[in-house]
């Protein structure tokens, strides 16, 4: 823009420049008087979020746990939202809710080896959640590669999903120690990442 200008009258240019200078100055003054420098502050008369009653009733919270489903002979893990009154860290709660599914009806109730307990609180370090399970986890497991894959991915998905992005991988310990494997097919020596191939595709 402004390229079309012919240099015809020098007086015109002087006038124009004066005009520009004046307008610019006026513009600056105008901006300064209003916008610039005006502090942006949160509304302090209404302080944000104070829940006065959060001590009284037992808080119910929701956790998502991943459970197996068999559809026409194909295996999937499906998220299931559970409400719980358990207190404590969300990852511990989610693990406890998952371990507690033993005995429920269907494929889901036969996922976690009987008697498996969470021995200590789930610790997260650099995106790796460390889960310490009791010896029943390996002692009472009697499945094939399909079942082993479902158990391990269910734990990994449950921790990743409830961590709000904090957990990327999961390291499973048994009685505080790293173990080679759960059922003789997959290695547990390194932290594992859940794999999307087991999630039920959206219809």
């Amino acid at each position, binding site marked *: 823009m402004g390229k079309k200008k012919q240099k015809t009258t020098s007086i015109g240019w002087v006038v124009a420049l004066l005009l520009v200078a004046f307008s610019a100055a006026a513009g600056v003054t105008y901006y300064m008087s209003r916008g610039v420098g005006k502090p942006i502050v949160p509304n302090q008369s209404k302080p944000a979020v104070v829940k006065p009653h959060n001590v009284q009733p037992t808080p119910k919270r929701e956790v998502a746990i991943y459970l197996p489903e068999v559809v026409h002979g194909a295996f999937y893990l499906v998220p299931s939202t559970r409400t719980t009154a358990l207190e404590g860290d969300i990852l511990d709660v989610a693990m406890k809710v998952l371990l507690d599914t033993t005995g429920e009806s269907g494929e889901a109730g036969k996922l976690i080896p009987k008697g498996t307990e969470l021995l200590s609180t789930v610790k997260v370090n650099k995106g790796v959640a460390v889960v310490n399970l009791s010896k029943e986890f390996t002692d009472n497991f009697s499945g094939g590669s399909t*079942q082993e894959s479902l158990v391990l991915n269910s734990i990994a998905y449950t921790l990743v999903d409830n961590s709000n992005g904090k957990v990327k991988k999961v390291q499973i310990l048994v009685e505080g120690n790293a173990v080679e494997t759960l059922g*003789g*097919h997959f290695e547990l020596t390194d932290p594992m990442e859940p794999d999307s191939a087991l999630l039920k595709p959206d219809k």
Partner: protein
Amino acid sequence: MKQAIWASVTLLLLLCAIIPGARAETVPVRVMIGTRQAIVAPSPVFNGKRVLAPLSILNSLEATYKAAQGDKITITSASGQSGEVETVDVNGTKMIPMDGVISAIGGDCLWDEESNTLTLIARVQSVEFVDEVLKINCSFPVSCSVRNWTSGNKIIIEIPSAKHVAEAQEVFIGSPVVTRARLGQDGVARIVLDLEKNVPFKVLSQPVASQIQIKVSESLPKVRVQVEKPKAPADQPFTVTGVEVRPVRDQQFEVVVHTDGKGNVSTSYGVDPPQIVIKLPGAILADSVDTHNGSHSMLKDLKLTQESHSPTMARLVMNLNRVMVYNVRVEEDAIRVMVRPPDGAGGTLADKFIVIDPGHGGSQNGACNGSVYEKDINLRIAQELASALEAEGARVQLTRNGDATMGLAVRSEVAINKNADFFISIHCNSNGTKNSASGIETYYHMSEPSPLALAYAVHAGVCSATGMCDRKARSDKSLYNSGLAVLRRLENTGVPGILVECGYINHSDDRSRLTDTRYRKKLADGIVAGLKAYVEGTPIK
């Protein structure tokens, strides 16, 4: 200060445009409110000095006006900023200068002489957080994008056609969930909310609004962590101009699909009969396309067809004389498919040394059903397979030939240390519910071509010999992110390995077969047929 310079430059530019046009001719122009065109009648005009628009444009800016002294009106924006503007009569319609309007309510004007377009950029006037709602007040309606960055505990708001009052600024909020808001500018006005922890959000305002409202609260439904699935790229159309077969070696050839741009490919693979199918989504075949250019002894025939149901989907089918492996390279002007025999193929099965790994053992029972243990059946099948292979003249070694406890790593090491040609691990499967799944699966590691070819061949052999339910040859990545331990150990060793799940021990039909010698003999014969197809190139059936 930069703000002031920007403002003056804008004004300067506007005035430069004004000066040469002493003759008051008006031309219709476009006024863009951010990225949306302001729809008003009559059209806004450029009178040689400035852009004028009818008063109704104020509706689109969510501003109101009332009469002031003389020809002037007072304009007030949705956020409460106001100023006076003089009205001008243009061909009988009362119009207002847009630079004046923007000065009054806040913002900037960008004039593009080439396209006769005036773009209005909104000003972000203030940011506040009240009762769990973030309010962003702008001088006129804008659209924005909001996303959350879960791993960083942040919510990021971007307004493409707006500017902040200052270059960069921090706003302390200090609520239990939102620590602060950081305002920044780089092409878009950006507001980053730093959160104490990851908290769900919901946009309450309309898609285009002068006050953007975003609720940030733990009471909102939790946003589930989505496992991202890679999106298939859009099928860009491209033309196939020719197909050529180039012999590389005795047993190796390359099929070159010439294209006029970068193409798209998906492949499917078969061993019974041996076949490689290259699907070309987006492909249009040129009229003159020649597919009879070159040949190779390993290639039975090659067909290139346009899919009848889609004018932009073509399919290249290569029928092969034996089980082969392939790799595909997509270049700017060609798709190259290199086809060769898999690792360890050639010669006869009698020349080969095969390590057979009966899964589990000793203290590790594997899957069990009552008194039926996977470790025992695995050993029986392995022994049956060993005799069948020895009958073919092949050399065989078992990783265990009794009920011994073995680690996972040592199993593959037997094959690696003894320089085996193949590694075959034998297992039986099981799941939670009895009688809910049945059949055979054959696993290869990740997507390695030779193990994939071996798995396909053996799986086809086994299914055909036993008539069991075909649960497919699959990648072990479909079970576990790092794959099956015994197969993973064979990575980069040149020993193709597979793991056969010979049936479901917790399914009564499969179990009665697995415990029957005749079934185990069929299984062994099926594995041998697959190996022969892979090594010798014989048909599977």
